[in-house]
């Protein structure tokens, strides 16, 4: 073991917080999307780190994390495609992808 499990968990947590900050602070919809993708990838790191820590446990415990990560990668791509399509549809109409300007409905 080169690095302890904790190092990877801290990396995952930091990355999650970076993504969280990006998703909350950015005004550009694409940047928000990127923040969310970073959050998902932080989860992937955490899952794979745990999976690696379970390498001496039963089959199921070890592989679940890796399979989960593959599913997340797949779903994240589908999400990105849907999001980009929506953002383009809004851009064509408003010539802007600023999330603070998407505000027709309030209260």
């Amino acid at each position, binding site marked *: 073991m*080169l690095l302890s499990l904790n190092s990877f968990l801290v990396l995952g947590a930091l990355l999650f917080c970076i993504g969280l900050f990006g998703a909350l602070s950015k005004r550009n919809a694409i940047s928000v999307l990127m923040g969310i993708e970073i959050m998902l990838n932080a989860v992937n790191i955490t899952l794979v780190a745990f999976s690696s820590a379970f390498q001496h446990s039963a089959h199921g415990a070890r592989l679940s994390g890796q*399979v989960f990560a*593959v*599913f997340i*990668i*797949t779903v994240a*791509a*589908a999400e*990105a*495609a849907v999001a*980009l*399509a929506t953002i*383009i549809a809004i851009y064509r109409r408003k010539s802007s992808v600023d999330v603070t300007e998407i505000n027709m409905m309030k209260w």
Partner: protein
Amino acid sequence: MAPFVPILIMMGLAFAFVVLVTIVTFILGPKKPTPQKNAPYECGISEITPPQRRFPIKYLVTGMLFIIFDIEAASLVPMAVLMKRLGVTGLIELVTFIAILLVAFLYVWRKGAFTWE
């Protein structure tokens, strides 16, 4: 920590390279600014719309479809690794998966998403 020293050195080198290239082009590049050169083209009316305006990309739909179909390959990797042990049932499941993708493919094809301008 020792095994990661090469990676750190590599990262440092990559960063140094970027900085170096930027500085070198800045120094070596010919610069002869004149007021005419800095002004807007010919007549001097300032631009009405921002000059770095984004323009529509024709292959947007193709690109999005590529993302989706491409990443599905990630789902196939675990199956491919275990294909021998999964046996006939596994093969049927794989074919079902591909068939579902094929329906989607036929749909976008018939809807003309692949038509190039």
